[in-house]
């Protein structure tokens, strides 16, 4: 039984003639500790799938089961708390809270939970991601790559079981992209985290343990390594 599972997931927008079936019955399973890549063209539904997996949005029908719990049975508040403890997100853009500096952005989910910060662990992540000298800066003062690294640090800081990344390297040049993916792979292995990345780059997809291909809202292929 994988840590992440969907059962006949459907997401439909609009009505009648204007109906858009973003997800049309998707059933997948991802094992704990796996590095999975979801691949598809624009409009294939991959972002929607990721949103569902993270409980950012609710499905029209079907289930999403995370670590044994059906997340759509939870109410808004429960889901939010669940999310901040169990899942780390990295998006393609606009990841960081513009009014907080780098350090504050990283520890935000921990503080929202009211927990104390594991200083050594945090130090380790920050060093690994090369952010030690940037802690006081605001997101507006960083480059795209640097911002993504901060986002990753934040995603890792709460030690979540699952990390969901939506095109994390979409805005980065090829070298930085490989760096970032490499980092994600290393840390996830290190802390035994499950990683799900959306990408349209075959290159990056090949680095994953599992590939799930999505097209027109359905699973159209995949590969397990």
């Amino acid at each position, binding site marked *: 039984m994988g840590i992440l599972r969907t059962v006949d997931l459907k997401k439909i927008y609009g009505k009648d003639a204007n109906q858009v079936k973003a997800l049309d019955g998707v059933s997948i399973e991802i094992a704990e500790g796996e590095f999975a890549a979801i691949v598809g063209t624009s409009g294939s539904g991959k972002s929607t799938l990721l949103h569902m997996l993270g409980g950012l949005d609710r499905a029209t029908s079907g289930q999403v089961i995370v670590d044994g719990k059906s997340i759509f049975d939870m109410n808004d508040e429960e889901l939010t708390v669940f999310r901040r403890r169990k899942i780390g997100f990295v998006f393609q853009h606009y990841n960081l809270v513009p*009014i907080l500096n780098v350090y504050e952005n990283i520890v935000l989910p921990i503080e929202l939970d009211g927990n104390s910060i594991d200083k050594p662990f945090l130090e380790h992540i920050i060093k690994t991601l090369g952010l030690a000298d940037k802690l006081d800066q605001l997101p507006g003062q960083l480059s795209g790559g640097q911002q993504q690294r901060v986002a990753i640090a934040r995603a890792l800081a709460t030690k979540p079981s699952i990390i969901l990344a939506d095109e994390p390297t979409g805005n980065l040049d090829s070298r930085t992209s490989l760096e970032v993916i490499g980092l994600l792979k290393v840390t996830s292995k290190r802390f035994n985290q499950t990683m799900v990345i959306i990408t349209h780059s075959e290159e990056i997809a090949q680095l994953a343990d599992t590939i799930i291909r999505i097209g027109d809202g359905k699973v159209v292929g995949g590969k397990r390594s």
Partner: protein
Amino acid sequence: MMFPNTNKGVIKKMIRRSLKANRSRNRYVILAIVMTTWLITSVFSIGLSYIKSFEMEQQKMMGTKADAALTNPTDEQLAQLKQLPYVKEIGLNTKAAEIVSPNGDELKANMHLYDAVEWEIMKSPLMGNKINLYPQQRNEIIVPTWILEQMGIEEPEVGMPLNLTYRTADSETAEERTEPFILSGWYTDYTQLRLGEPGVILVSAAFVEQLSDSGAERMASIAFDNGSRTMSNIEQLERELKLGQGQHVISYSQGSDNSSKASTYAGIALISAFIMFSGYLLIYNVLYISVSNETKFYGLLKTIGMTRRQVKRMVNGQAIRLSCIGIPIGLAAGAITSLVAVPLAIGVFALETDVEISFHPVIFAGSALFSWITVMAGYRKPARIAAKISPVEASKYVRASGKKSRGGSKLYRMAIRNIFRDKKRALTVFLSLFLGLTTFLTINTLILSMDTKNFVASYVEDDFSIVNKTAELGFQGEKKQKLTDELVHTIERMKGVTSVRSTYIESIQIDYSAEVFGKYVDDFVNKYNADRPSDEDLLRQEMFWSLIIGLDSRYIEELNKTLETPIDIEKFENGEIALLGDSSGALTIGDSFRVSVPNSASQSFYIGGTVSPQFMAPYGGMAPNVYVSQNVMKQLISDPIIYKMSVMAERNQWSAIQDKLEALTAADQGLTVSSKQQWMDMLDSAKTIFYILGGAITLILALIGILNFVSTMFTSVLVRKHELAIMESIGMTKKQLRKMLMLEGAGYAVISLSLIATFGTLMSYGAYYLFSQEADYAIYTYPTIPLLIAFALVAGACLAVPLIAFSQSKKLTVVERLREV
């Protein structure tokens, strides 16, 4: 690596940072809070000060802060009074002696001793001028200024010697003594304004002791615990004290107080509600827009894991901090305004007394509270909206506007679409503009409709009137003939005077007859909500009393011009018929009735007609007032007292005549002169004050409406930065964009101004209609000029703001603006 200390207040941090990042929005919100608080404080302050001043004034005219007084109390009764739980204070006022005037003329004064309570609590707070301490030494006295003036002392000095002749209260002995006294203080006696009572000279306890007179009259002043239940308290007192012969309890309360207080409170409440609502609309709008622009931000926070409650706390936390800045500023501004506005406002209503500005903490605590409520209410929905924003918004690229576009790229069509894009925003802006400007319109209408000439014409008949106050109902002292035939001649000879008429007055009894007066009494008790006495009771003399009024027959001549059946003047003159004051129609012309003057003659008359019950004498008893000719009056009553002299004169001589009349009556406290001109002047100044105050308040309300518009318009342009950049990138010139925005502004202006011109005018007319029911002298006046000015301001803002907003945002190039997400 140095980590900052774990600060448990992450939400507090978010609050602070959010505030820092949104400076211009903060300024708007603070401005709205300041204006709302300022207005509420001013309204509360003016209202409460008015009530306090009015109360003070009533008390000053009564001369005492006591609610009631018991005449000739026994020592046992005094002890009893001290025990009663509903009696708060008891003061003792002893009349020790009467002053004897050297020339036997008008100087009427008594010497009184006040005990500590009477002095400190009941009397001295109401005495103006220099009173210093209560007389200590045996021959120290405090004298009212009007008596000093009569004695020829214009500039009193402490320590001045005064010789007075007095006689102890027990006039049987009638022993007069003259002694030198020392003036230790003096005071302005306001009760003189109301009645021609004898003056009160305060003497020391030492003085009274050596008088060795046991016949001194005493009066106990009583202040109740609950001042609004005076009547029932007095009734209870009368029961519990078992009054002796010649004892009674005088009430100092004016029943009318409570109703005018209630309506003032109601007025304050209504205006405050209005202000709060306007403030609420503004704050709500500003915040709604602010939150709408930050959906990505809130979505991100939700994604990271901020719960709804935490988001609400963050948003409301900003409200609290902004209030902590805005409310004190508003309170301070309100306090300053009160210092200026309150004396202005009260000065209209108060007579010769000082203005009491109420700086009671309740005003400031209350305004802070109401302001707080307004701000929190305005923040509520936007906070909820922010909290509800779904995390998925963070990753959405552009917020959908939710409105299907209806083809047509004509600039004006786009403009209209944009105005109604966000229906709720549009509604709030229109509502708030409408509210502000309609209030403005209404207040202006009401004030301008107060036609002074009309008022004076309906309520004041005579150009001048001189009234003998001793003949008025409620006068405590002796009635005296003050208006003499000699005076009449003197006035008649004054340049410009066209006529002088005298009106006589006296109290009488009417023999009750059920056939003649039955229905009249029924109607009377109905109108005044009194108990209907039985016919047997009415046959007893004392119940059915009224006034007899001796009229100059010229009044009848004038009256006849308006009547269908004219009154027979000859019969009126010779006493066959008399007129009765009645408006119920319950009396029959031709009926006979009998009038008796106490201890004097009696006479029968036929009812010759009816006049308004308020004619010449706006008071009376249960029986209708009787109007007879002057000759009849003189026959019936020996040396009847002239109550009023009505003088008509040419307008261009009014000022001169006023001076002359005042000079003639200056010496006599019992005569008062009033003139049409005085009334008109008073009303005009009242109008001006109302205008200033009302105008200022409504101007601010209107400003709130305009501010709302400005903020909405401004932000809507900023929000559409991206959209406008796209339009520019596909070929719309800046000029075209500006034109579109101006059309939007013009659209707002046209729509709101039309609403105001139509519905607003209707509402203001409605208010005028209600007003004119009470004030029948009002003439509907549309405040065209003030309204045009307001309209010009609004229109100006509507056109200018979009342009300013646009010019701010177009500093960057198209690409930069497109990239800005």
